[in-house]
């Protein structure tokens, strides 16, 4: 029956394997506990050597380490003697665990002085017990129990030890529970941690004792001491704790995953043994291992999802809300809406009693309240009255939690900063601010969100802070964008307003000018008309006297009458010029273009002014043109006026010599040149020559006889003909030349 034998051998082999792995498990838990306690002891001590809590924690770790190292050697013991020695040594550690723990709890809760006597008593009892550890009064004998080769039989003092052990453990637990009910915030959270750690640790540790009393429960919970130590160390070292629900959730997920995978491994081993017995374990073993490794991640994820949904559901939805908030932040550009949105969401999601958003002004760096719910207005801004908080947050780039300020202050060396931090803590307490969340842009503070307390009284957890930090980054960008947007919009509005204002000013000024201009033109028009009536009467009567309507006038009156008539004519001309100007300026010039010969027009003007020139002893001549001058389209009256004005002007300023008029054709232009031998002009005078009397003082200054309108009217009339007019002079006393250029077409 070789096959049967083979199976039997295999069964023995597997049985031994399982037993070995059991023994290995216990040794391993001991080793893990030992290493963890040693490491954590050092770690916590180095973290803050001066802290009494840390020192006492080291003591506690030492007792656990002592117990654990010896525990590690117990399953390895080859004979009864070494097994006993291991048990005796591990109990030295075990005796001191509860009292050291109580010591730690008393220091932690600031009850050390109060409960000193109980503690001393505990230490005394422990020492006494310690003295008896190596006697049979403590461990009577080592016998096989359960699947262990050697396990202790309790001596008389062992019962006493257990009594003391649980008494002190329960007492410490009781004190913690009492303190938990009274405490608030971070401390409450820390106590919660330690309490849970204590329960886990002692429950697990307690699995070591049933076998002593022949109850068949193996010490399966031994390893929980490690968990216990880690939790407590974490609570001591960290300012800010993770939400315990989260920690426990994670722990549960890991544990469940591990248990599942181990169960699966055993199941697979069993199945392979049953159905694949021909295949060597050397092949199936690694295969199972690979399968387990591959399956661990999916299983872990499954439990994680499960736990997220049911175990810490609140946290799950809360994260979702904040993620959504982050997304929506980028969609709002209006600063006010954005701020309201942020504050509203934060308060609703985290259930806060108050929140304020402060925005820092560019330039002076002052803060202003952008959105506030719950804080008193003056309080909202009070934290940033001095620069300290801003500088501090820019330095740390981290949210500042009120609960942690006392720890930060504790770790800050004496000096100015410590004082400022203390002031800050007082201020935060006064206004009931629990958290300052900096809004940073390129490491510079652009604003701040100050949060109040949670209505539930819970402190801010590690997750809260992480989420808030993420959120603050997004909020910073969104707020900065909104600020820029509103800046641009305000700038636009301001610009529009300014442009509107300026436009109105301009338009008002323009209207005012237009009104003035109209008034001037109307004045000129009416005044001219009113002036013309008496001029008409004078002209009419003088002409009638000269024409002898009233009989022959005396001989000697003829010259004076002629002079009166001429003077009146001059006045009439002046009034006509004024009327022309008013028409030009009102844009109401009438035109009537005809094809005419300019030479004819010039000749008729010369004819008219011949006598005037002669009386002054001046010559007035039109030079016969060398080329054929074509007829061009002109308004006869205006062309005549141009030439008349130019020649009259020349005669007026010439005392000797005379005036010469020339006509010339150059390409498509006809040029009229009026030159005189008169007093000439300076460049300054030329530059003001064609301005109307109302346009500048220079004109009025040197036009002493005329009104200074002739050349202005001439220029305007030339422009009507799309021509050009200009003057040249070699200087004072050297005569002047006036040019008019008119297009042939």
């Amino acid at each position, binding site marked *: 029956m070789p096959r049967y034998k083979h199976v039997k051998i295999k069964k023995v082999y597997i049985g031994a394997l399982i037993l070995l792995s059991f023994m290995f498990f216990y040794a391993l838990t001991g080793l893990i506990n030992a290493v963890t306690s040693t490491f954590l002891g050092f770690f916590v001590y180095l973290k803050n050597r001066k802290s009494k809590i840390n020192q006492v924690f080291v003591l506690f770790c030492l007792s656990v380490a002592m117990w654990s190292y010896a525990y590690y050697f117990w399953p390895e013991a080859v004979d009864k003697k070494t097994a006993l020695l291991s048990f005796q040594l591990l109990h030295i550690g075990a005796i001191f665990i509860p009292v050291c723990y109580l010591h730690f709890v008393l220091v932690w809760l600031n009850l050390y002085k109060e409960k000193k006597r109980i503690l001393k008593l505990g230490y005394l009892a422990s020492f006494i017990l310690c003295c008896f550890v190596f006697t049979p009064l403590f461990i009577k004998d080592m016998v096989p129990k359960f699947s262990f080769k050697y396990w202790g039989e309790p001596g008389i003092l062992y019962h006493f030890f257990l009594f003391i052990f649980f008494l002190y453990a329960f007492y410490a637990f009781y004190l913690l529970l009492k303190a938990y009910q009274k405490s608030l915030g971070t401390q409450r959270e820390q106590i919660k941690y330690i309490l849970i750690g204590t329960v886990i640790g002692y429950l697990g540790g307690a699995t070591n004792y049933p076998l002593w009393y022949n109850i068949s429960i193996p010490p399966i919970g031994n390893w929980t001491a490690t968990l216990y130590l880690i939790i407590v160390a974490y609570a001591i070292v960290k300012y800010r704790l993770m939400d315990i629900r989260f920690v426990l959730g994670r722990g549960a997920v890991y544990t469940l995953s591990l248990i599942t995978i181990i169960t699966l491994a055993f199941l697979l081993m069993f199945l392979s043994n049953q159905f694949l017995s021909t295949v060597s374990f050397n092949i199936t073993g690694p295969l199972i291992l690979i399968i387990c490794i591959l399956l661990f991640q999916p299983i872990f994820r499954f439990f994680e999802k499960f736990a997220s949904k049911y175990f810490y559901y609140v946290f799950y939805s809360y994260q979702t809300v904040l993620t959504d908030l982050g997304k929506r932040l980028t969609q709002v550009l209006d600063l006010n809406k954005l701020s309201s949105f942020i504050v509203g969401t934060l308060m609703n999601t985290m259930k806060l009693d108050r929140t304020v958003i402060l925005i820092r002004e560019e330039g002076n760096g002052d803060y202003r309240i952008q959105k506030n719910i719950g804080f008193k207005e003056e309080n909202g801004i009070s934290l940033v009255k001095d620069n300290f908080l801003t500088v501090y947050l820019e330095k740390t780039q981290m949210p500042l939690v009120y609960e942690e300020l006392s720890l930060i202050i504790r770790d800050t060396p004496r000096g100015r900063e410590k004082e400022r931090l203390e002031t800050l803590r007082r201020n935060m307490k006064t206004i009931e601010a629990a958290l300052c969340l900096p809004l940073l842009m390129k490491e510079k503070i652009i604003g701040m969100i100050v949060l109040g307390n949670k209505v539930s009284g819970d402190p801010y957890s590690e997750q809260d802070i992480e989420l808030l930090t993420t959120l603050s980054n997004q909020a910073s960008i969104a707020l900065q964008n909104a600020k820029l947007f509103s800046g641009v919009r305000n700038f636009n509005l301001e610009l529009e307003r300014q442009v509107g204002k300026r436009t109105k000013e301009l338009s008002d000024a323009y209207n005012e000018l237009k009104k003035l201009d109209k008034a001037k033109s109307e004045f000129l028009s009416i005044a001219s008309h009113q002036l*013309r009536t008496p001029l008409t*009467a004078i002209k009419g009567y003088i002409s009638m006297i000269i024409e002898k309507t009233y009989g022959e006038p005396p001989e000697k009156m003829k010259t004076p009458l002629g002079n009166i008539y001429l003077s009146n004519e001059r006045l009439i001309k002046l009034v006509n010029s004024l009327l022309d100007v008013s028409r030009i300026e009102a844009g109401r010039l009438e035109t009537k273009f005809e094809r005419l010969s300019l030479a004819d027009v010039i000749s008729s003007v010369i004819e008219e002014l011949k006598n005037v020139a002669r009386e002054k002893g001046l010559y007035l001549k039109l030079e016969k043109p060398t080329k054929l001058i074509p007829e061009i389209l002109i308004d006869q009256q205006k062309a005549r006026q141009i030439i008349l004005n130019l020649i009259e002007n020349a005669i007026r300023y010439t005392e000797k010599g005379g005036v010469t008029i020339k006509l010339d054709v150059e390409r498509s232009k006809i040029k009229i040149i009026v030159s005189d031998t008169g007093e000439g002009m300076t460049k300054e005078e030329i530059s003001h020559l064609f301005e109307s009397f109302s346009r500048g003082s220079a004109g009025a200054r040197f036009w002493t006889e005329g009104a200074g309108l002739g050349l202005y009217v001439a220029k305007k009339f030339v422009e009507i003909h799309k021509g050009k007019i200009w003057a040249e002079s070699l200087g004072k006393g050297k005569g002047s030349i006036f040019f008019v250029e008119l297009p042939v077409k």
Partner: protein
Amino acid sequence: MNNVKKILVVEDERILGEMYRDKFSQAGFKVILITSAEEAIKVVPEEKPDLILLDILLPRENGIVFLRKLRENPEFSLIPVVVFSNFDDLETKKQAYQLGVKDYLIKTGHTPQEIIEKIKDYLK
């Protein structure tokens, strides 16, 4: 005395009106001097003038209004009208010519004698 031409002078300026009346009378015209448009329009059917010398700027109704009323009656629409005014306005001139005036004279531009020359032309 059929040859004596009757001229209606509508002129509100007394001095000017008298001046023209003196001159035109001496030149052999029968002159009726009226100082307002309203009165002038009443006088036209009675007097049936051979020519009207019309000022434009008159009290209340102006010369253009008078012209319009005058042209409403076909009987008088053929009476030659010469405007003589110092109101030298493009728009008014246009209106006057549209209403069929023979000429639009600027008073300061002409002596009474020159106006007589013109009138004689239009009466031919």
